């Protein structure tokens, strides 16, 4: 890399990242070529593989974990991040043309999902990214390029002691590449059925600093655009789910000395998302402007290789804007003709933000123990006239203390004991404890048993929703101007947190050459699940608070702790290198949900596929040719909000990649086909028809 090229951008990034500290480290200078000295042997080096960065060997992991590394990400041929989670046994993933918020993926472990799948913790470099508005992440708004991901660790089960609030059904922990590993430039281009994508990544550094800047522009054409016949002489509506995505992501680190490191992360995602439906006059086709941004600062002090103190602060802010004026016309309601309601007759915006501060200390008190403890403060805020009937921010604060002790009393036994104690404004104080035991019964065979409890706090929408639409009469003329209020949804302040009590047993077999077979059975008992239900306001019920602002004869959507289920799940994960050049990943899950109260209208039993499996087989034909085959299959499901019971779903994907040199520069060209046999299967809702998608990609390093 030329000095001039590096200098220009590093100055810019340096200013952004508070890294302007020339000569901050007066360490012994190590040599350039021909300048080797004893300093190369004795100079102190910063700790790179600190305890927080190290992965536990599978046999020490106190949970069922699926790791998706960079090679798997490439081999999978995923178009976007959420598609990767199809490789996780028991994970429900579906693309959903959500008409109300933005189109995107539904990702939920063990199903139980609605369009805002909200019962998982989602972390990117330790920053939690589920939106406080609905509780689930908006996957397409996360400024994250697939190529910047180092690995994804998916914890299949609750683990609040280690991953914080909302680690309820599971945890998705996305770790991006360290900027020290991404020096230089990479240009990636992709184009085909799903759209076009252009990513430029630039990285560089000095002796004490590294940075990476990624810019992405994506014209995502969503799923098929034309009406698709689905039998019975019917067609699904044409999809209106295009996304124009502009991402900027910056990650930098500065090492002040061998002990102290400051990391700065910044990301911005903007663009437009299509939403709406032909069938709904109040929610016609329209475009939303979305803007998500975050900034995170993390300081880490390495007191010793096994002793780290870190302090992290971040701020997330997501904004959605839409303007339905001129799109929403008058509606007929019986004999009445009503004007477009407030607030739909004006511009709408929804803002969600989060401030989070966390201190964490990792240490090894004795040779046989390792302790992680810390404390966090968080404030969430949301503002939306549509959902809260107010221009003010609704705030939600929570504080937590967490600790996890890992104790190895004997070489073959490993105990993990942890808890998170959480306090918040609305539901008080609760503890989420967890106990895990790993026992190596024989070489290569480890048994695992875990009991845990975790809570999911109701999100602000569930607690404080006040979606009130005010119509006024246009005709008949005699009643013109008469107000007709319509309470669409009303939250409930005193909702209790949902609770999961989980028991799990696992058997890990290490197969050599890094291969492993993991078998898991879990029995989870979920209580007080928050459900939305419709309440008919009639003349006799108008005195009830939920009908106070509504009109007789209309339905108001209410929320309550109504659901209780037991989930029994068997899962198999097999990863193996075969004959040096072939890599296999296989996952299978059988999930059975027992509805304990039959409260939800459609029932919970079908909210997870009874069986699902995934397969990723990759083969390196020569140093420069690689091909991979992905297969995904799930039995029928019927998700809340998806409304339809859907038959089995299958998908076969193929990727062929060739590495070559363009001039003197390393390059890769790949062809990816998703849904090889053009199945036409539907996922999440009958409108989401999977069709074949084909694209090519080119990567160039320079």
């Amino acid at each position: 890399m030329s000095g001039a090229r590096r200098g220009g951008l590093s100055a810019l990034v340096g200013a952004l990242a508070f890294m302007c500290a020339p000569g901050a480290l007066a360490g012994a200078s190590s040599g350039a070529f021909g300048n080797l000295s004893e300093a190369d042997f004795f100079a102190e080096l910063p700790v790179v593989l600190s305890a927080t960065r190290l992965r536990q060997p599978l046999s020490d992991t106190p949970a069922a974990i699926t790791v998706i590394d960079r090679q798997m990400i490439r081999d999978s041929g995923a178009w976007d991040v959420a598609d990767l989670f199809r490789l996780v046994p028991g994970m429900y993933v579906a693309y959903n043309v959500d008409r109300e918020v933005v189109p995107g993926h539904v990702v939920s472990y063990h199903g139980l999902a609605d369009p805002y799948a909200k019962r998982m913790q989602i972390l990117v470099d330790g920053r939690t990214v589920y939106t406080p508005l609905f509780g689930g992440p908006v996957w397409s708004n996360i400024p994250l390029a697939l190529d910047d991901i180092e690995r994804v660790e998916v914890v299949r089960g609750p683990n609040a002691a280690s991953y914080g609030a909302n680690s309820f059904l599971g945890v998705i922990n996305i770790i991006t590449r360290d900027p020290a590993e991404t020096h230089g430039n990479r240009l990636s281009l992709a184009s085909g059925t799903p759209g076009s994508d252009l990513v430029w990544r630039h990285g560089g550094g000095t002796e004490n600093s590294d940075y990476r800047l990624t810019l992405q522009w994506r014209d995502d054409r969503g799923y098929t655009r034309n009406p698709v016949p689905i039998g019975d002489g019917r067609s699904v509506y044409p999809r209106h789910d295009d996304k124009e995505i502009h991402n900027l992501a910056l990650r930098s680190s500065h090492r002040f000395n061998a002990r102290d490191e400051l990391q700065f992360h910044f990301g911005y995602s903007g663009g437009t998302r299509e939403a709406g439906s032909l069938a709904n006059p109040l929610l016609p086709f329209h475009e939303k402007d979305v803007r998500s941004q975050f900034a995170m600062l993390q300081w880490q002090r390495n007191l010793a290789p096994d002793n780290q103190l870190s302090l992290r602060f971040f701020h997330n802010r997501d904004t959605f804007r839409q303007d339905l004026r001129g799109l929403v016309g008058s509606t007929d309601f019986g004999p009445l003709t009503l004007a477009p309601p407030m607030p739909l007759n004006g511009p709408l915006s929804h803002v969600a933000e989060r401030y989070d501060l966390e201190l964490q200390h990792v240490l090894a008190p004795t040779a046989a123990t390792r302790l992680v403890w810390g404390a966090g403060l968080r404030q969430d805020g949301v503002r939306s006239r549509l959902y809260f009937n107010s221009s003010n921010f609704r705030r939600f604060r929570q504080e937590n203390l967490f600790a996890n002790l890992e104790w190895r009393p004997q070489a073959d036994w490993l105990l993990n004991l942890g808890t998170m104690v959480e306090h918040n404004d609305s539901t008080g104080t609760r503890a989420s404890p967890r106990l895990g035991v790993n026992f190596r019964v024989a070489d290569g065979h480890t048994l695992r048993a875990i009991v845990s409890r975790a809570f999911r706090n109701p999100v602000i929408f569930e607690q404080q929703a006040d979606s009130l639409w005010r119509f006024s009469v246009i005709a008949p003329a005699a009643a013109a101007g008469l107000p007709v209020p319509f309470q669409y949804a009303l939250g409930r302040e005193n909702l209790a947190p949902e609770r999961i009590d989980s028991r799990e047993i696992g058997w890990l077999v290490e197969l050599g050459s890094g291969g492993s077979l993991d078998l898991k059975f879990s029995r989870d008992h979920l209580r007080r699940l928050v459900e939305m239900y419709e309440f008919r306001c009639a003349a006799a019920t108008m005195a009830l608070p939920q009908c106070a602002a509504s009109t007789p004869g209309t339905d108001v959507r209410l929320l309550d702790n109504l659901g209780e289920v037991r989930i029994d799940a068997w899962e198999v994960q097999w990863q193996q290198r075969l004959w040096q050049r072939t890599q296999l990943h296989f996952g299978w899950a059988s999930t059975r949900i027992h509805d304990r109260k039959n409260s939800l209208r459609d029932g919970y039993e079908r909210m997870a596929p009874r069986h699902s499996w995934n397969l990723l087989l990759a083969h390196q034909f020569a140093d420069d040719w690689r091909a991979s085959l992905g297969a995904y299959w799930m039995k029928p499901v019927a998700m809340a909000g998806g409304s339809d019971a859907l038959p089995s779903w299958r998908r076969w994907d193929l990727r062929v990649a060739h590495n070559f040199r363009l001039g003197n520069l390393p390059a890769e060209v790949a062809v990816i086909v998703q849904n090889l046999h053009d199945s036409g299967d539907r996922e999440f809702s009958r409108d989401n028809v999977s069709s074949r998608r084909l694209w090519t990609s080119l990567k160039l390093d320079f």
Partner: protein
Amino acid sequence: MPPFTASCRRCLRRSRGLLAVLCVALLTLPAAQAAVPQMVLVLSERGGVYEAFADAFEATLSGIGENGRVRRVLASEAAPETALAGSELIVAVGVQAMRAAAGWQAAQPVLGTLVPQRAFEQLQAESGGKRRPGSLSAIWIDQPPLRLLGLFRQILPEARRAGVILGPDSAARAAALQRAAARLSIELTMETVATEAEVMPALARLLPKVDGLLAVPDGVVYRRDSVRGILLSTYRHQKPLIAFSQSYVSAGATAAVFSTPALSALQVAELVRALPPGRVSLPPPSPAAYPAIAINRQVARSLGLEPPVDALVQKAIERIVEESK
């Protein structure tokens, strides 16, 4: 070379400090028959590893009753005429001191220590053979390749494939590394780079083909600003890095074999003590005789490795070196 007793080896392993050196000195160096020469100890800088060497060196000498044989000077301060008066040998600690001492063109021979082999060879090349034989020598800080490969074998007993990236400073070590690898039936794959920009691509090519990476000192490959990328990359490939310094182990290398100032001091003390009486003539340069090892147990465990305790690893490496003689 005097016998090096087992008890002292144990002593050394437990502590790399002054006590260990004293113990070694007292046990291994029988009463001197001839006095060691009068020496000027030229330190590259004040403090740090240089003073640590000087302290250990003097303690070792005083352990055999050779007090007052050493005068310390700083490379930057030394006024050759006065400092060298009455001395028979210059012991230069570090590259800067060795270069300064060689530049004085003094009558006394110069023995470099704590200097890399590469730096010594460069100095020798620069002097263009003008120096008389025996007037310039060194105890290198580098470990012989067999120790590095021996450590690789101890950390990865099942592994057969090691990788190494050589740069301009280390390219000349290729043949010696290959010989050592062949002796241990290890298949050594090499990548050679000329510039800093080639290091990470070379690593990306190399790592899928090998079971672990051996680090050989090189100013282009192993720089302060490349360490991070190399450690992260090897770790991502789940391959251990076997390095050449304690610092690398602290930073995240799985293991390292290296010299310490105290061990170098012992070797220099043995050398000067064995010099024949009369006008000092130095033997040819030699690599470090006494290794220390360090293992990062956390990283090893995370890579699914369970190396034996340090002492057993060290013993096994020494056995490999002994057997090859």
